[in-house]
Structure formats: C-alpha cells, structure tokens
C-alpha cells in the first residue's frame, strides 16, 4: 500500500514539474493580503471605493453600474461555454498588505514584490529598468510601482495607476471614464465599472509625442480572486503614444476571472498604438484551471485624422473572449487590428474586432492570424459596420487560420454591414495546416520539431509580429514558439 501511495506522490510531483516547465510564470508569491469580504454587494463596492479614498462621484459611478448589473443577464452567445460562475464566491479586492500605506518609493516596496517582478523579467529597480520603457506594475488589485515617472512628468505626460489618477487628476478621469464603454454596456463591462480596482491611466498632452513605450504589467497572484482592471488612455490633439500590456498568473486548479475594461480616446490628429502580449495561465494539459479572459477593449477615434491601432498576441488563458474595437467617429480616422491568437491543449478563444465607421473617409484594416493546436478551438468573430454617413470609407480584412493536428477547430464569422454605397469592404480568409512534409523539410535542415513549428508559425504570423514594438517582438516570437511546444507529436 505504502509503495503505491509513494508512487502516486511521485507521479503528481513529476506532473507538477512538467507543468512548470511549460508555463514558467506559474509560480505564486506568498504574501499577506488585504481582501474585501467575499462576494458582490453594495458594501463590497463601498469598501473598495473607501480603501481607495475615492471621491463621491466615483462611488456613484460604481453604484450606478452595480444597479444596472443586477438587471443584466450573463451573455451566452459565445462559442466557448464555461461552467456557471458564482459571482458571490469571488473576492473583488485583494492587495498585498504592505501596500496599505502606499510606499512612497521603490525602496519602501516589499522585497517580495520586487522579487516577483524580477522573476517575471520586469525589473522595477532603478538600475535594472528596461531601457526606454516605462512600466506600471499591477499586482492583483493594486498598482505597486510606476517607473520613469519624473521623466514623463517633465513633458506633461501623466502615466500612473488608475487609483492615483482618480485622486490627483479627477477632472480628466471624470470627463472621459465611461465615455467609450458606458457603464450600461454589457454584463462584464458593467461588472467592471462597479468593481474595478486598478489599472493604468495615461494622458498625453497636445502635440506631445511620448518619448518611450508605456507599459503595464498585470499579475494575478491571489487565489479565488477576480482581476478587474480599468485602463484609460487619452491622446490629446496631435499627440502620439505607444502602450503595451503584458499579463501572467500562477497556475491554479481553479478558473480565475479577468474582466478588464480598456478605453482609448484619440482626439484630432492623435495616434494611439496599443499592444498586448497576453500570457495568462492557460490551464494544464487536461484543461484544468486557467484564466477566463473576458475583456472589453474599445478605442474611440474622436477627432479628425486620428488613429488607433490594436496589436495583440494572445497565447494564454483557458478562454479568451474579447473584441478590441475602434469607433471611427472623426473624419479621416483610421482603425487597425492586428492579431495573433494561439490556442493549444484545451484552450478556447472567441476573439476578433469591431470596426464601426461613422465619419467620412474612415479606413480600417484587420489582419487576424489564428493558430489552433491540440484539442483547442478558435473562433474569429468580427464586425465591420459602415454607417450611411461614412462616405468613401474602406475596410480590408484578412483572416488566416492555421491548424495543427486533427483534433482542433478553427472558425471564422465575419459580420459585414455596409450602409453606404460609396464605401467598400474587402474580406479575405484562408485556412491551412502545417504539413508533415514541411516539418520533415525543416528537420532535414537540422531543426528539431519544436524549432520547426516555431519557424513555420512565426512565418505565418509575420505581418502581425512586425507591428509590435521592437523590444517586444523578439519576446513575442519566443512566446509563439513556447506556447505550441509539444503540439506536434
């Protein structure tokens, strides 16, 4: 009997080690937390608002959203189904205890937190900072540090946590928050409006070209906790900013909910480039655990000649369900969406974009590359809507799917609405497979199976990878390779 038990122990230990090999961000940090009482209620919302020392208008914004939320039904039209989430069984606020009296400088920051970010490859300390990239680090529900703050302040750029912005830049937040994603928008967006905890805030003043990449690194650490972050980026007239977010989470058997809202606003002649490298824990090989990534991202090209471009590399999460969108309101505005979505093992994704053309001469471009492996399932769902007033508008869409093995799925559903005869929509789609012959050819040239897959897939994704800021393109390329490891036998 004993021997058997030991064997079993060995097995599970072995499995743990193997898992760790696959997802190197799967560790958790043992740190003391302050949590809101479990569940969702007016009290919990008041608790969050109070602990963040928010002004009254902010609390009212939250409560209004909560009232609305109570009337909403969870949507069910998406392809990947998931077991019912008990919203009363989640923690809506969790923060490291050491953050209660917010440290004034990095020297005061809990060494455990510094260590965590170092392990993630995001050094926060002065001497080791990433060159030319300002980072806002969000740990569970709070922002723990923002680098390069002084340098940015000199140019009038505001880059800080949302909590800080609500206190210090209340007027700006009040003016723009919820203008792109209204509190009444839909189930998860509304939930976010009620309980969001932290995230990043960016304001680029008129005529300023932000001199460095701004980046937020989201980390879920605590268990049974949802992460509801809120990001708001405003590019004033004639300004430019490139922003990047990265995400990871520990490996846990439970599914964790991540429901963020991201709002972008570009005024006249402004440009926002928003890149995401999403690598939340995808669950284990049997589909146990992993993050539910149900995110609402929307950009408003409010002014004329403005431009918003989304680039996403989605390799993590058990379920990814999101449609980063552009509302092209200003005349001559441009929306772009470049996406690589990879699903392996039991991962599922229902992702794409929405391009809403309202202004004249508006242009949008969608390049989507979906890769499915293992027993995963991938759906591209996209909407191109050209309104009757959007004369001379154009959209080009290209959706390519790559299948690996014969147990996975790939689907493409484009919704196309053109109410303007002077406007024009093009859609192209392909589906292909990595062939054994291609792999053999690469093997014969000295590449092992994983190198071969990585090379072929990176070729398939090239158009999108080229859109990423240089500093991250190399990382993303590696990630593309890693997330498909073991997918070809």
């Amino acid at each position, binding site marked *: 009997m004993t021997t058997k038990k030991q064997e079993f122990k060995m097995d599970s230990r072995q499995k743990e080690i193997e898992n760790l090999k696959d997802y190197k961000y799967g560790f958790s940090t043992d740190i003391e937390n302050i949590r809101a009482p479990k569940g969702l209620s007016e009290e919990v919302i008041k608790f969050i608002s109070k602990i963040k020392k928010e002004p009254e208008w902010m609390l009212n914004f939250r409560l209004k959203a909560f009232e609305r939320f109570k009337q909403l039904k969870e949507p069910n039209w998406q392809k990947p189904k998931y077991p019912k989430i008990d919203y009363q069984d989640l923690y809506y606020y969790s923060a490291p205890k050491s953050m209660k009296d917010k440290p004034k400088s990095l020297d005061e920051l809990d060494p455990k937190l510094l260590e965590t970010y170092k392990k993630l490859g995001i050094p926060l300390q002065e001497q080791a900072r990433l060159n030319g990239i300002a980072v806002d680090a969000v740990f569970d529900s709070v922002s723990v540090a923002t680098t390069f703050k002084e340098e940015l302040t000199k140019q009038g750029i505001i880059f800080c946590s949302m909590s800080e912005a609500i206190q210090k830049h209340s007027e700006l937040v009040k003016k723009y928050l919820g203008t792109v994603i209204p509190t009444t928008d839909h189930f998860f967006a509304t939930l976010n409006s009620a309980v969001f905890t932290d995230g990043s805030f960016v304001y680029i003043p008129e005529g300023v070209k932000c001199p460095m990449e701004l980046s937020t690194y989201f980390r879920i650490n605590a268990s049974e906790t949802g992460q509801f972050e809120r990001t708001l980026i405003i590019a004033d007239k004639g300004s430019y900013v490139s922003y990047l977010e990265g995400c990871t989470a520990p490996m846990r058997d439970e599914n964790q909910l991540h429901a963020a809202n991201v709002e972008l606003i570009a005024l006249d002649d402004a440009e926002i480039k928003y890149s995401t490298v999403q690598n939340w824990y995808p669950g284990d090989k049997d589909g146990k655990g992993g993050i539910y990534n149900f995110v609402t991202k929307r950009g408003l090209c409010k002014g004329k000649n403005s431009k918003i471009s989304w680039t996403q590399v989605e390799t993590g999460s058990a379920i990814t369900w999101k449609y980063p969108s552009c509302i092209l309101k200003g005349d001559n505005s441009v929306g772009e969406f470049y996406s690589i979505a990879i699903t392996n093992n039991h991962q599922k994704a229902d992702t794409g974009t929405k391009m809403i053309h309202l202004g004249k001469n508006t242009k949008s471009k969608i390049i989507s590359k979906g890769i499915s492996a293992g027993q995963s399932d991938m759906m591209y769902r996209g909407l191109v809507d050209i309104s009757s007033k959007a004369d001379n508008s154009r959209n080009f869409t290209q959706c390519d799917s790559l299948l690996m093995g014969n147990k996975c799925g790939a689907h493409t559903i484009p919704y196309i609405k053109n109410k303007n005869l002077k406007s024009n929509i093009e859609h192209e789609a392909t589906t292909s497979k990595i*062939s*054994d*012959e*291609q792999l*053999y*050819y*690469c*093997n*014969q*040239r*000295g*590449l*092992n*199976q994983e*190198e071969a897959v990585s*090379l*072929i897939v*990176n*070729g*398939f*994704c*090239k*158009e999108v990878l080229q859109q990423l800021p240089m500093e991250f393109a190399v990382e993303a390329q590696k990630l593309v390779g890693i997330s498909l490891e073991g997918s070809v036998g």
Partner: protein
Amino acid sequence: MLSIENLKAKIDEKEILKGLNLNIKPGEVHAIMGPNGSGKSTLSNILSGKKGYEVNGNIKFEGENLLELETEERAHKGIFLAFQYPLEIPGVNTNTFLKTSINAIKKARGEKELDAIEFLKLIKQKSSELKFDQAILNRQLNVGFSGGEKKKNEILQMSILDPKLSILDETDSGLDIDALRIVSEGVNSLRNKNNSFLIITHYQRLLDYIKPDFVHLLKNGQIIKSGNFELAKELEKVGYENFN
C-alpha cells in the same frame, strides 16, 4: 562513410526495398538510376530519416547506426537531402531559414553560431561562387519560385551547410538545359576528397555534367547491377524494361 546492408523497407504493408546493399567511401560520387517505382525516392527518404516507413537492415554512417538517429540528428552529422519537391514555407524569408538551419547544425555540433554579419558574408560568397542571384534569398522560402529556382535554392543550401553526404533526389527533373548546367556546376564545385554524393536520377543527362564514379541500377527494390559511367550510357540505350 556510408554502408547499407540488406535494407528492407515497407510502407503501408507494401514492400518497396527488398534487400539493398551499397557502400560509399569519402569523395565518391554514386548515381542510382532506375525506373519509376523502383524505390529510389524511398532510399533517399530512409537515409534522411523520413518517418512512416517500416525499416529492416543495417545502415552505418561514419560508424554510427543511422537508423537510431532522428531526422535532425542526421542533418547535424552531415547528411543533406536536396528534395525532389522542395517545400514552400509562407512568411519565412529564405535567408532566415538558411540562418536558422546553419545555426541549428552548428549548435548541435557545439560550434559557435554565426551572427548576422558572418552569415551574410557566407551567403554572399556562396551565391557568387554558384552564380546564383541573391535576390531570391529575400523572398519567402520557395513560395512562387519557379522549378529551376527551387532546385538552385536546394543546391545553395547544400553548399552553405557543407554536408559530408549529399543526396540529390531527382534534382534534374523539371530543369531546362541552362538550369541543369548551373545546378551541375554547383555540385561539381562542392566535390572534394571528403564529400560524397548520392545522385538519384531517371536520366543519363545529368550524369553527363556530373561524372559519377559509380552507377547502380535499382530495380524492384534491389540494386541489380553496378558499374561505372558506361552503365548509364547502356541503360539510356536499351531502357530499364529490357535490362536484366
């Protein structure tokens, strides 16, 4: 360098090679001729390590049991196959592919990998030696290449990887006379006392340009006759059907 003993191979229960023997010494050029379906491509696939065959017999390459090695390990040891139908890999620049390939091999051998500058220098030198247009290297691997361009690209890869044993699987098929000459010159320039070649072909034509040391007739899964260049000429005259 290479010794094949009593090699038998089956695919989907069908026996294709039925006891093949062959010895290749360093510096030798061997040609294998034979009719369609005689097992020529199967032989090159088995030597390079393509999966899906049931293989029996012995193959020693530089003293090592070749059949125990993975496809890429064979490439690391210096076996190169110029494909009859080179594969297209969309989005992958030919240069990138070549660099990934040579560095994978160098890494496996514990040698220093080439940086971008060293690599470009090598590419430039090799393509001018072989009189190849370098523009081809900036295009996606084999995508939209003509038949001739694909084959030239194989020869360029061969010259860059500098293999010990090069297997050319019907490299002459689909080539016009000019391309045939360029490809042959490429092969000839790589000939030296250490490198060996196994050239698989239907026609004597290619052998007019690349003079083999030995010619073998493969028929019905076995080498039924071996000789020198004269054998190729004789085969061309009487045809495979009548040759016994």
